[in-house]
């Protein structure tokens, strides 16, 4: 069975891009634009294997969403990976210190993106 990645990204074109990369890499994707839609999806019963969150989102930001996911025992074991255009090492350290399991900076590397995500799944 294919692993299911849940992507939260408010910039529509990047949502399409990341979905395409994951699909091409043999992964299933559910993509939404904000935290509210994410939790609606989860209430509807989907079972993501990994969460991929943009950091700057309308409404609750990526870090807040990550904390809510980590606080919920249904999702506690699932990796939560940050996706953002902040490219400074200090930002990476900061995100990891907040509790993210991993961090991918934009622009994403088309050739290695799906492989990188798979690494977080194992």
């Amino acid at each position, binding site marked *: 069975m294919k692993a299911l990645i849940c992507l939260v990204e408010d*910039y529509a*074109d*990047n949502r399409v*891009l*990341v979905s*395409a*990369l994951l699909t*091409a890499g043999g992964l299933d994707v559910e993509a939404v634009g904000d935290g509210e839609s994410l939790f609606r999806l989860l209430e509807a019963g989907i079972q993501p294997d990994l969460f991929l969150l943009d950091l700057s989102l309308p409404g609750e930001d990526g870090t807040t969403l990550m904390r809510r996911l980590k606080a919920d025992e249904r999702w506690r074991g699932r990796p939560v990976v940050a996706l953002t*255009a*902040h*490219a*400074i090492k200090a930002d990476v350290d900061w995100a990891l210190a907040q509790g993210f399991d991993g961090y991918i900076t*934009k*622009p*994403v590397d*088309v*050739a290695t993106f799906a492989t990188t995500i798979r690494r977080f799944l194992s």
Partner: protein
Amino acid sequence: MTAKAQRAALKATGATRAQREQSTTAWFRSLLESTGEGICGLDLEGRVTFVNRAATDLLGYERGQMQGIDLHDACHHTRADGTPYPRAACPILRASRTGAGVRIDTELFWKRDGTSFPVEYSSHAIVDLGGATRGIVLTFTDISDRRRQGQAAEDLNRALMATKAELERANLLKSDFLATMSHELRTPLNAIMGFAGLMRNGLAGEMNETAKDYLERIDRNAEVLLALLSDVLDLSRIEADRMSLSIHVLDVMAVVGEVVENMRSLADHKGLVLELRDFTSDPNVLANERAVSQVVTNLLSNAIKFTESGSVIVQVKRDGSRAVIDVVDTGPGIAAEEQELVFEAFRQVGAHARTGTGGTGLGLAISQRLARELGGDLRMTSDLGMGSHFSLELVAASVNGISTDKGTGPAPSVLWATSDLASTQRLGEWVGALGLGFVGFAAPGLLVRAALEMRPAVIAMDLPPNVVAAFVAEIKENPLLAARPMLVVSGDGAGVWDVYPDVRRLSRPFGPEELHSCLGDLRSVAGPAIAEA
């Protein structure tokens, strides 16, 4: 001529006693009238016994009108804030009674026409032959001009401070704007590069050669844009001073050597000779490895990019209290009139700009700012057609008894800021004899940052007296450093010990014994700090 001399001169001419006294009185009178200061005599009750012309002029009276009037009631009755000035509180009346001297410059005198002026006055007792006070001589001047000048200077100063704050705020806003913009632009750029990449990788089906070529061009330009954004972000971060670079002891040969090896394949590819020459007696510097590596990488990649044939030589040497890394190429060089532009942001000069050799034009601007952040500098010399020569200067360090392996070694026990690095060789050995580590350097501007990073057991300074107090204060005011034992070498007081009596003073000249005893004292004050080192 003094009054006494005047009398003696008259006596010699055979003048009568009466003539002599008359002459003396006239002499005093002319003295009194010649001064621009108001002078008046007051009796014990504060009544005017005599005045000079300046006094009547200043207070708006005719000559003779002031004789016998009560000075406080006439001229000193109301304070500057408009409230009555009670006689009981009047310093002039008190002085008149007691003969005490006063000097005041914060009050007003009132003129006969009801206007006032800021006054400075002082009193001097009149004492009779029996030693009893008979009143005072009060001298006073109108200090309106002085007040106005003081006020003008104060206004100017305030305006300057406001402008400075405004500029700082504007600069911060600019840096914030650059950082935000650079970040915001990455999001759409991500989509552009991503979709181009998707298509290039065949995820949208097969494409013909022309389409592939166009995609590659999209990709290449997006890469340039991305490099620009990263550089703008770098620059804005340096300017916003957020990228406070941590300072370590580094082996600069090791750092430069690594960069040279990383660049070797680029040089080989163009058939250039790339050589690293070690002329340094001591490779230790105080710097930040990432920053040094970034600057040297930038210099080398420029040199290789712009040199079509010949060589790129890197040499590392010591020059006094500086370590110098020279990058010399046999490229086209830069014309004299363009040389000062190369360190400006967004400049690519001469042929490079015209032939579109690439690069963002920000690399050298960033490199120079980084070098200056590290207490060093980045300079260039070049002759058109003869190649370019860039010199990166860093702060040299004199190290004893600690490992300098990429700054991961233990903290030094003694961090020694000096203005004469040559002297520290010996000091390091003296400190080493106690089994303590030592780092000396001649760049006091780095002291606080180096101390914060290294946490030495003792912070020592051997600096000119006019700057030492400021550095001591800077350390004492930093909560993370205030408790560190400090040692100051000084030939004179420099005012440090009045304010910070716990700073240990080491008087010049001193030998190992004096230094050891000084460090021993500090050890007893802050035992654990030295013991831990």
